[in-house]
């Protein structure tokens, strides 16, 4: 194998969506990338930072940077975590006035990539040899679309999946209304946004909704399941692991 990456699965995926991380390992291995899992990893600190507890996020930044200090490249399975790292880590690290942490952060941040971004921008791959003969819509999550600007990555990867029919999602660029604690603090607003997102998905008449953030997908899936629509959601990594030969490893 030619390259080695460290997988940052994110606390949420580790606990709730291990299948996404297993699929990502499978896809990366298939592309001759060796995967490591630094097991000190926990959480990027986004929930704390975004909710207003930045000071609690600072030790999590430190923990992240230390956990991945030996990594050549880090592949993250969440666009919003990647955006957190890319946009806010240096500023949060700087609050500590700890020179070692600051330089460690400076060094690490440019080596962190979101999964689809890593495939298309670093490996230069769009066709991973997957096959998924179903009607699919892609929901561009806010952070992947407007922070990381990687809409094209997922679209290129999905476009190369055998048998996959990609259907335009009306108002795709609109937020699903999750926003972490937003969905609790402003639950009525969140539910209204989610209802519109769900209606647009139903209008697209697809079998599966794909995205690169399981948090948004969990939110969307919550409504799709609650309403008995029969429409499933999948992280992009899981779609790309479909129909690949050789299985895991």
């Amino acid at each position, binding site marked *: 194998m030619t390259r080695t990456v460290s997988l940052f699965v994110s606390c949420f995926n580790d606990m709730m969506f291990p299948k996404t991380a297993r699929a990502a390992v499978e896809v990366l291995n298939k592309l001759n990338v060796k995967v490591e899992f630094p*097991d000190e990893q926990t959480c990027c600190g986004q*929930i704390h930072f975004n909710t207003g507890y930045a000071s609690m996020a600072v030790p*999590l930044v430190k923990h992240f940077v230390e956990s991945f200090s030996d990594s050549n490249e880090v592949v993250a399975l969440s666009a919003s975590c990647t955006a957190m790292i890319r946009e806010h880590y240096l500023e949060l690290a700087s609050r500590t006035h700890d020179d070692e942490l600051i330089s460690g952060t400076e060094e690490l941040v440019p080596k962190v990539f979101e999964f689809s971004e890593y495939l298309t921008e670093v490996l230069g791959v769009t066709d991973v040899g997957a096959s998924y003969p179903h009607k699919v819509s892609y929901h561009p999550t806010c952070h992947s679309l407007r922070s990381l600007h990687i809409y094209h990555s997922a679209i290129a990867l999905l476009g190369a999946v055998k048998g996959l029919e990609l259907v335009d999602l009306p108002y795709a660029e609109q*937020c699903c209304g999750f926003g972490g604690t937003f969905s609790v603090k*402003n639950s009525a607003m969140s539910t209204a946004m989610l209802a519109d997102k769900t209606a647009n998905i139903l209008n697209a008449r697809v079998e599966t909704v794909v995205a690169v953030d399981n948090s948004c997908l969990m939110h969307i899936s919550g409504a799709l399941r*609650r309403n008995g629509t029969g429409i499933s959601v999948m992280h992009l990594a899981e779609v790309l692991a479909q129909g690949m030969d050789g299985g895991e490893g």
Partner: protein
Amino acid sequence: MARAKTGFPFASIEQINNSQLRANLKSATSAIREKRAKVVGEKQDWEELRRKGERIKNEVLASLDEYLLELEESVTKVGGVVHWAADSSEANRIILSLIQEHGESEVIKVKSLTTDELHLNEYLANHGISAVETDLAELIVQLAHDKPSHILVPAIHKSRSEIKELFENTISKGKVLGDGPAELAEASRLYLREKFLSAKVAVSGVNFAVAETGTVCIVESEGNGRMCLTLPKVLISVMGIEKVLPKLDDLAVFLELLPRSSTGERMNPYTSTWTGVHTGDGPEEFHLVILDNRRSHVLADPVGRQALRCIRCSACLNVCPVYERSGGHAYGSVYPGPIGAILSPQLFATEASLSLPWASTLCGACYEVCPVRIDIPRVLVHLREKVISEGYKSKSEEVSFGVIALILRSGRRFELIQRVATQIRRPLNRVLLTVSLPGALGKWRAARQVPEIPDETFRMWWRANRSDNGS
């Protein structure tokens, strides 16, 4: 301190449940959104223009004291009078006494946002002076004893048939009107022409004021500004301290950025600029009221101060999924939408406004369209931190986040918690999926089925299958 039931989550509920309002807003904001996207898309150097706008505004904010003194000098030199107002009550007193000096009991107004911030109309009314709004939408709002719900389109929440009825009961009493735009505009025109021709004093806002020349600029779409700025004998213009620009040339940048961002037009229909007073041409007296009203306080915050770059285009409102479903009133401020969510808590710091930094999913649509590149999501998060650090928080939330952070500071501790959750996943899933839950979690689950906890975490799988030498 617990959150009082006055903030955005409560104020927005009525609007969210009003399907007519949501439909009105959706069609209005999507139409303007598409127009904007089209005219911005055809501009090859748009990003460069945005950066220029940002740079000029940053330069102004960095040397605001100097530019304001230069503006005062320039305005005075060309025959204007500058008044400094530290807060809204001082500004109101200044404006009132200027009107009273001329013995007037009625004034006409154009571009009212800053004066809305002052609650000038109420103040004048309490002193026996009626202020007539001349922007069509502002007039509609005024006649309906309502409040504006959008920066640029204050009556965006009103339908044509509502406006027809309103006019028939007010300015067109005794007449039967159609609800066509031309007929409604004509009704307001007949009413306003009389006001323009009889008023002695006009009160205006300011879009831009040029320090170098003392030139003041107003950008509007109906021509009413031109009437207000040229017909009355006395013109009183009110500006926030952040509206100053260094040079006349800087206007060129903003006259490109503003119309494309706000109305989706390539060029603004009526752009008025004036430099002092000229005998026999326009007002004989020109007063410029320069207002602080806590803007200098905002300026002191290195992250929050970028909100002062705002040129009030309202592009952020039109793309905001939250605004689209709540309307402007829920923000409880003259500045609604994403920009309001960062301006209001800083300018007014009322208890209700302190909930506004959380009235966003941080989706970033606002930042993407802002013509002066205000990173609204960044400021929102900054204000969340600030508001919490000032004690406006829920103790139980703080404790929960503290405990979670403590767990997440160690891979081992996190794994231990994961193992426990995985061990008890069956009863836990049952509780999460079926048992009725109180409060926020119950409400959340009413609309969303929660996911089940799987029987194995990724970490456990990795350990069992891959940990020997990587994969």
